[in-house]
C-alpha cells in the first residue's frame, strides 16, 4: 500500500519529526529523565497511544518493519488500528513476528522473545511520572527528580509492606535507571521489568497527553525498586499456558464459563503461536488432555 498523498510520510511533518527526534536524543543522553516535548494533537485520542505513535512516526524509515502490540497481542483492536494507521500513512512493512521487527510499538507488555540490538521498542505511556500518585504537582515532582529525592517513593513501598505484606504494585512498577532517575516503565506488568535491564534494544517511551519523552539506552542498568529484606519478585503463575504449555511466559486469564471455569494462555500471541508451530502443546491444544504437571 502506498502512502496517502494528503499527508507526509508517517503523517507528521518533517519539522515536527525533527523536534521529536531532538527530544529523543536528549532522552537517550539522560537515561530515565522525562524530556518535555511539543506533543501534537494526533488523529487518535489522547490516552490511546499518541505518544508512542509520535515517536514511531519520528523514527520510522521506509526500510523499517513495524510490529504493534497491545496487551502482548498483535490483534487487539487498538494495535490493529495503530498498525493500520502506519500502513496507510507510511506504507511500511508490518509484521507480527517479534524477531523480524525493527520497531516494536507496545502498550502494557514487553515481548517474551529476547530483544535484539538492532531493534527499538516504543512504549505507549499514560502517566510518565512515577511520583505522580504520591505528589500531583508537576512543579514538585520535577524538583524531586532534580534532587534525586526519592524518599517518598521508598516510604510508599515500605507502607505497602506493612499494610499488605507485599509491595502492592503489580504493574508500572517503578525502576531506577542507570543509578540515577526513578522512572515509570509504563503499565507493563512487573513480570516484564527484568527484561528492561541490560536490554540490547533501545527503549523509548512516549507520553502524548503529558507531553513527555524518556528513554533507556541499550545495555543500561534498570533496577526495580525494592528492599534488601523484601527483594523485588516478578509475578509467577501456577499454570503453564493452556495452548503452548510455556511456563516462562506472562499469562492472560480467560473466563470460559459462568461456573468458575478459567484457562490461562500466553498474552504474547506471537510467542505462543511460534511455540505451537514448533510442536509445543498445552493441555487444551492439539487434542491432548495433558495434566497440568505433564505440560511442557
Amino acid at each position, binding site marked *: 500500500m502506498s502512502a496517502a498523498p494528503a499527508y507526509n510520510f508517517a503523517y507528521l511533518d518533517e519539522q515536527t519529526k525533527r523536534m521529536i527526534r531532538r527530544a529523543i536524543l536528549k532522552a537517550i543522553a539522560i537515561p530515565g529523565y522525562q524530556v518535555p516535548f511539543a506533543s501534537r494533537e494526533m488523529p487518535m485520542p489522547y490516552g490511546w497511544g499518541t505518544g508512542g505513535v509520535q515517536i514511531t512516526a519520528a523514527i520510522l524509515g521506509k526500510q523499517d518493519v513495524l510490529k504493534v502490540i497491545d496487551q502482548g*497481542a498483535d490483534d487487539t483492536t487498538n494495535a490493529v488500528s495503530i498498525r493500520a494507521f502506519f500502513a496507510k500513512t507510511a506504507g511500511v512493512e508490518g509484521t507480527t513476528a517479534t524477531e523480524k521487527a525493527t520497531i516494536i510499538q507496545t502498550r502494557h507488555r514487553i515481548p517474551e522473545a529476547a530483544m535484539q540490538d538492532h531493534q527499538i521498542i516504543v512504549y505507549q505511556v499514560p502517566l510518565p511520572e512515577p511520583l505522580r500518585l504520591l505528589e500531583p504537582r508537576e512543579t514538585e515532582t520535577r524538583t524531586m527528580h532534580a534532587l534525586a529525592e526519592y524518599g517518598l517513593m521508598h516510604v510508599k513501598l515500605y507502607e505497602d509492606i506493612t499494610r499488605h505484606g507485599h509491595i502492592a504494585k*503489580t504493574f508500572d512498577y517503578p525502576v531506577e535507571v542507570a543509578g540515577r532517575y526513578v522512572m515509570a516503565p509504563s503499565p507493563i506488568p512487573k513480570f516484564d521489568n527484568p527484561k528492561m535491564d541490560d536490554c540490547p534494544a533501545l527503549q523509548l517511551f512516549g507520553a502524548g497527553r503529558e507531553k513527555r519523552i524518556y528513554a533507556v539506552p541499550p545495555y543500561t542498568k534498570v533496577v526495580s525498586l525494592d528492599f534488601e529484606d523484601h527483594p523485588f519478585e516478578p509475578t509467577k503463575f501456577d499454570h503453564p499456558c493452556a495452548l503452548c504449555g510455556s511456563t516462562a511466559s506472562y499469562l492472560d486469564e480467560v473466563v470460559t464459563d459462568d461456573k468458575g471455569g478459567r484457562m490461562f494462555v500466553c498474552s504474547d500471541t506471537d510467542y505462543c503461536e511460534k511455540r505451537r508451530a514448533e510442536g509445543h502443546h498445552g493441555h*487444551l491444544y492439539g487434542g491432548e488432555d495433558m495434566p497440568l504437571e505433564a505440560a511442557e
Partner: protein
Amino acid sequence: MYVAVKGGERAIANAHSLLAKSRRGDESTPELTVTQIEQQLSLSVDRVMAEGSLYDRPLAALAIKQARGDLIEAIFLIRAYRTTLPRFGFSEPVDTSAMEVRRRISATYKDLPGGQVLGPTFDYTHRLLDFALAAEGETAIEAPATAPVDADATMPRVTDIIAADDLIEKSPVAEPGAPVGDLTRDPLAFPAARDLRLQNLARGDEGFLLALGYSTQRGYGRNHPFVGEIRMGEVEVELMVEELGFAVPLGEITVTECQMVNQFTGSTKEKARFTRGYGLSFGHCERRAMSMSLVDRALRSTEFEEEIKGPAQDEEFVLSHSDNVQATGFVEHLKLPHYVDFQAELALLRQMRAEYEAGTFAPAHQEAAE
C-alpha cells in the same frame, strides 16, 4: 477448544460502517446539510470553533455533522485537522474597541457612551418550548426593529472608561515584536505566564470553565466580580507582512469579549484600584467568555498575594485539566484492554488472600491496594 479471538481488523471495519449508518439515521428523513448546521446550529459551531481553536465555520459544521452532534468529538476532529496546518505567522492583536458591535451590555453603568445593545440574546426569553418550531413549514420572520445606526458613535470599552479615572489596574500593553507563546507548539511549563493561561482557557472545556467560575462565586476563591462589559460582534484580523512593512487585513471574525471588574487591591504604598479578569472567545459564547474571565482573575491570585483557597485559583489544577480533548481521551482510554495489568492485580490479590487464610500474614490495616 479455545481459539484465540482474531479478527480485530474486520470488527473495526464493521463498527465503522455501523457508525456511518447510525449517523445518517432513517434515510427517509432528508439529510442535514453542512450549511444548515452552520446557519441554524450556529452556537454549536461557535463552541466547536472556540474549543477546536480554529476559526472556520464550514469545517466546524462539517465536524458536527460527522460527529453526530457530539460537540467534544467535533472539537477533536477540528483539533486533529488544525494540528496539520502550517503556521504562517501571528496576527496583530485584535482591537475589540473597534469592534462592529452586535451586542454590548454593561452591568456596572446604567448608561454609557454607545449605550446598551441587547442584540440576539436568550436572556429575556421565557424558556417555554415553542411548538411552532416543531411544525413543518416556515413562516416568514419579521424583520427585527433596531435603533438607527449612528456611524460616528463610538463605543469605548467600559474598562477603558474606568481606567481613565485610574480606578482600575492598567491593561497590559502588547510589546511589539515580543514572542507570542503557543501552547500547541511548546509544552506548557509551570508557573505559566498569563498569555499561555489565557490561551489554555480560551480553548478549555466550556463546562469545566463554567463549573470553576461558579465555584469562585460560591466562595472557593471569591473575587467579587462585576460584569464591566460583554461585547459581541465582528473584529478585523490583521497580519504584519514584513516585506510590505504594514499590516494587511485577513478578514473578519466574530468574537465575544467579557471584561470583568474585580475586587480592588491597595496598600499603604499604592492607591486602591479594581482588578481585571478577561475572557475572549470565538463566536457568540457569553457563558464561556464570562466563565473564562472569572477563572482568569482567580488564577491571578498569586500575583495579588491572595490566599489560594479554591481549585479555580490553582494554576496546575486548572490548566492541566481544562482541555476536553485530553480529558475525554484519557477517561475513555479505560475502555481499552487492561487485562495484562488486571491479571497482575488478580495474582497479587489471590496471593494476599491465601496468605491471610493460612495466617502467615495479618495486615496492620485493612486498606485496599490503590
